């Protein structure tokens, strides 16, 4: 049973992700953040619904669209924002940027610029968890597009034969850049067959379930079963979460491949709105939720200030951290 505290913590994380991403969008448009940035707005229910089950010792692997996973896992947003600004106080000391934020302390094994690359890493982390016999689990987040990458497909097989404590979470946000995950028109070819990735997982020997990825409680429930299964040593599962990204694929994307109407249609089932309605129906006072939202906004502003006031790394730092020994 979810306590009210837990529910409000989940709500807080979702609005914090949203506030962070909306603000990063603005900052990017203003030219204050460089590089390639992929925003998670719209998909908050997935990261938060799943990671709410995790504990110290568990790990996740992430994607190019990793801010939401980071925040859900509890990575400090001041460090994240400073990282996006390329500052020395960033989570990765300014060396990684948006696509490479990691924080092993909280179990976040890294965003990743290579689609599907988190799969094998998750297999390895789950192998280690199983080897230690600690009951720890690993979650591998990956997009719908990533499901056709050999790295992910091989990982499904490996996780199945080794019976690893690994939960594959598919974030099916309907698109891999411009390609629909399921499409009927000729100009927008299907990137998968009509068969779902959930069905594919089963054929690899991995139980799976399709989930409403806009409903954080639905995600939470599905993840609960999968995480329990994994902790009990019963092996991997896959959750195929149907969701949507609100912004372009990356910041700057002209979005020629979808209509404004389509975006608006999805926004009607906004995960934060849906969850808020649920909470209110469940007796939570509106002001409490407004306060949480305000708190999140303030924290994001604080993070921006922190980032902007932080110095850039010294040029000499370009040569450190290649190895544990000095650079050669």
């Amino acid at each position: 049973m979810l306590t009210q505290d837990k529910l409000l913590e989940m709500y807080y994380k979702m609005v914090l992700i949203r506030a962070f991403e909306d603000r990063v969008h603005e900052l990017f448009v203003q030219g204050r953040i460089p590089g390639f940035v992929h925003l998670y707005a719209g998909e908050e229910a997935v990261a938060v619904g799943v990671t709410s089950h995790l504990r110290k010792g568990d790990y996740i692997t992430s994607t190019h669209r990793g801010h939401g996973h980071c925040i859900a896992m509890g990575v400090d947003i001041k460090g994240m924002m400073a990282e996006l600004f390329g500052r020395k106080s960033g989570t990765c000391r300014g060396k990684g940027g948006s696509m490479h934020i990691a924080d092993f302390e909280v179990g976040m094994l890294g965003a990743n610029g290579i689609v599907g690359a988190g799969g094998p890493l998750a297999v390895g982390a789950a192998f280690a968890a199983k080897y230690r016999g600690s009951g720890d689990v690993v979650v591998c987040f990956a997009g719908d597009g990533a499901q056709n990458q050999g790295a992910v497909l091989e990982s499904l097989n490996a996780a199945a034969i080794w019976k690893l404590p690994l939960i594959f979470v598919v974030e099916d946000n309907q698109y891999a850049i411009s390609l629909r995950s399921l499409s009927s028109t000729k100009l927008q070819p299907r990137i998968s067959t009509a068969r779902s990735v959930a069905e594919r997982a089963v054929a690899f020997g991995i139980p799976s379930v399709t989930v409403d990825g806009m409903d954080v409680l639905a995600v939470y429930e599905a993840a609960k079963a999968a995480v329990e299964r994994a902790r009990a040593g019963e092996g991997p599962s896959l959750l195929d979460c149907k969701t949507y990204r609100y912004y372009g694929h990356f910041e700057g994307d002209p979005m020629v491949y979808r209509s404004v109407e389509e975006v608006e249609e999805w926004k009607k089932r906004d995960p934060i709105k849906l969850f808020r309605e649920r909470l209110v129906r469940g007796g939570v006072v509106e002001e409490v939720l407004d306060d949480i939202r305000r708190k999140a906004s303030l924290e994001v502003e604080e993070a921006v200030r922190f980032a902007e006031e932080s110095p850039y790394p010294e040029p000499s730092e370009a040569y450190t951290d290649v190895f544990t020994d000095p650079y050669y």
Partner: protein
Amino acid sequence: MSELREITFVEALNEALHQEMERDPTIVVMGEDVGVYGGIFGVTKGLLERFGPDRVVDTPISETAFIGAGVGAAAAGLRPVVELMFVDFFGVCMDQIYNQAAKMRYMFGGKIKIPLTIRTTIGAGLSAAAQHSQTLYSIFAHVPGIKVIVPSTPYDAKGLLISAVRDDNPKIFFEHKLLYGVRGPVPKEPYAIPFGVADVKTEGSDVTIVAVAYMVHEALKASNELKKEGVSVEVIDPRTLVPFDKEAVFKSVRKTGRLVVVDEDYDRCGFASWVAALVADECFGYLDAPIKRVTTPTVPIPFSPTLEKEILPNAEKIVKTVKEVVKKV
């Protein structure tokens, strides 16, 4: 040549593809987002509308499958142009490139041909960080059987892409991200620039600079700077690394007695080393100074602009290095 318009590098590439596809129905274009999107940098814009989905194929994120499909289709008589969105992704599909496409003709005793063009992007400078900023052409030049093409101007981009599409061998065609927006004169009609012919961008007598891709522009900037200080620089753009016009470089070094190689790829075991090694072997008697390399140190490309700037070669570093070798006479 007839009409010369100022167009961008990306427009030049796009025009080459349009014209060649018009001419040869065996050319097909494949890759992630090459159709509806027109390529994330716009190189394939309009092709889907013009040539339809049988010839312009949006692929799933399965580089091994679709680059390998390019190889298989080439073996079976088509002339595919396949896009690898960033060269940084070569690690998920290298086998199909270097063990399959590049070796089939040789392994099979010369009885077949693989007319495949792989287009990809290279280069840092956009804070795209460690997995979207690399310049890895040295790896493709290292392995046998694949031609390596690296244009630096819109004119060369069009002419070399047309040659690539018409050539009967596997090729990898590198497009530097910072060059896409660069403008230059380009003839309207199709033309082919032969491989293995270096372009002497500016003649000089004191030092030879060999530079590739975006670094050609930095080298030219440096050359202008140096001219003001009385140093006469010869800048050579090899344009293709395989085949490599070593005679053009040797000829220049025999004249100047000094060589600086400028290359955005990692320094260790990179292209710059190889050029230095060729000259240290074959032009040793003509050398008046150490051979220098201005390259990217072998560290992952950092995200932060201050760090990225620190490691990338640029005009300033080239000027500094040239002065070292000129001084040392």
